[in-house]
């Protein structure tokens, strides 16, 4: 029964991929997740940190149901996705919105269609086709575009928008989807550092307003520590800590980024220092 209150419940999840260029039959595998167990309540705000290649994206794709684990159990809103298919599976997927690092929008469509694409799960194929010719539910699209500040770009072709505007269109797409949970994969990786905090605040604000669960993969540790009450550290496919930001020490961060090329000596201490200087926003 406990599983039902949990938005995401993962138990001992393993996932491996055949190595690029290698043959899976020869046993050249990369272990992306090595026994991940975690549970996230509905409405919670969580940041997942860790070096590149730690398995953050794989974990996110497990949760938005575009990857299946090799072994282990996953429950989403108390439902085991491996037991359902077709319409039921699509309904479960519709409950989670995802924002991608590369936005994954359709560049040749107008912004309005990219936003309305968040409605596809409630539309028939005929309505979907008709909407491409004459957009349906424009008022809804305009409302979410206004919330993220791209209302004036509604009729622009998406590839003519700036990177930041495209990201806002991608956020608007998840808003119109009206999902219970929001996942974001490195949303600030390609954003100007000065705007990173503004963007994360916007995501937190939008999810708080509708009591959405929000799980964000972040490379930027100070931003994660500033904005999220729960931090999960992922290293080489394993969770090495799951703590509130106050309890995270520089030693833990050094362990997390062990062997990572981008990690410069002593940087972890600076990160903690930054948090002391700028206490948790809001």
């Amino acid at each position: 029964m406990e599983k039902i209150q949990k938005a995401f419940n993962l138990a001992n999840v393993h996932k491996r991929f055949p190595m690029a260029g290698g043959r899976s039959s020869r046993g050249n595998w990369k272990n992306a997740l090595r026994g991940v167990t975690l549970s996230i309540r509905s409405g919670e705000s969580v940041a997942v940190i860790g070096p590149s290649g730690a398995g953050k994206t794989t974990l996110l794709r497990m949760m938005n149901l575009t990857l299946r684990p090799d072994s282990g159990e996953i429950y989403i809103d108390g439902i085991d996705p491996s037991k359902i298919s077709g319409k039921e599976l699509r309904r479960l997927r519709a409950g989670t919105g995802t924002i991608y690092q590369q936005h994954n929008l359709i560049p040749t469509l107008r912004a309005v269609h990219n936003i309305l694409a968040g409605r596809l799960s409630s539309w028939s194929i005929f309505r979907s086709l008709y909407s491409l010719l004459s957009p349906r539910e424009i008022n809804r699209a305009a409302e979410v575009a206004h919330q993220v500040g791209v209302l004036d770009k509604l009729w622009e072709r998406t590839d003519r928008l700036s990177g930041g505007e495209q990201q806002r269109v991608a956020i608007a797409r998840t808003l119109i989807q009206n999902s219970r949970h929001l996942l974001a994969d490195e949303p600030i990786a390609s954003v100007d550092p000065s705007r990173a905090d503004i963007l994360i605040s916007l995501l937190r604000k939008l999810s708080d307003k509708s009591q959405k669960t929000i799980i964000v993969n972040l490379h930027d540790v100070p931003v994660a520590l500033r904005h999220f009450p729960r931090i999960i550290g992922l290293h080489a496919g394993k969770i090495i800590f799951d703590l509130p930001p106050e309890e995270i020490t520089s030693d833990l961060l050094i362990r997390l980024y062990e062997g990572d090329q981008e990690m410069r000596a002593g940087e972890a201490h600076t990160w903690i220092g930054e948090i002391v200087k700028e206490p948790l926003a809001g």
Partner: protein
Amino acid sequence: MNLPSASPPTRPPISAGQFTITAGIAAAIVSAFKFTEFNPLLLAAPGSLKAMAEFALGFFPPDLSFTFLATTLKPAFETIQLATAGTALAILLGFPLSLMATSTFHLHGSLFEGDPIVSKSQKFLFATPYWISRLMLNTMRSIPELIWALLFVRMAGLGPAAGILGIGVAYAGILGKVFAEIMEGADTRPALALRATGATRPQAVLYGILPASFRTLLSYTLYRWECGMRAAAILGFVGAGGLGQQIEISMRMFEHHRTATLIIELFLLVALSDAISSHLRKKFT
């Protein structure tokens, strides 16, 4: 001063596979010339040079009289119609088949990620439309439009209808295959993102793949229309009407001045369609 690390590593030896392929291609080219008894020197022999010159001179001057030019207007227009209607028919037949023949829509790939694992027999069942459409496209494509037109002349009689059907069927095979390849090569990340929101696979194709491939599809179709213009001329020789048929008649009547005029007209027509299609294609890409 020599840098110790600058000496190049030993070149890897040419593999047996590379050698076999190269030798095989060379042998195929040489034997092709040998078996067709093609000898370029024959063209340069004094007797044949003279004959060629006489034949070529026979075309001059082209018949540019108003009365003749006026009679070629209708056939010229007919050639354009053959190419245009043929290409339109090819889209009508080829596009739906290409949707069935795109492997990434039916068999495997990003659009299936996270979907339930299906049994071997189910997979086989889902793949049936794919194999049927591939078989149809391959058949349509491997028989050239000239042969199709000959068959349709028997069925539909002499005239443009046989030509339109000939171009339509043969080009549907080509368009269908190329369309499928274009869509297989499209970026699947946007489509997978839509599947993650709960969209069906056809919806993900409609929003994620088709708009992204649209310009390439259109550009290739225009190129085919341009090819259709040339094909339409050839089809005239088997009775499908247009400039080709007029050229055939004038040659049979030894009216070489008129043949020259008709060939010039055909050249202008092809050049015009070439210019139109390349202009439009530049706009689309």
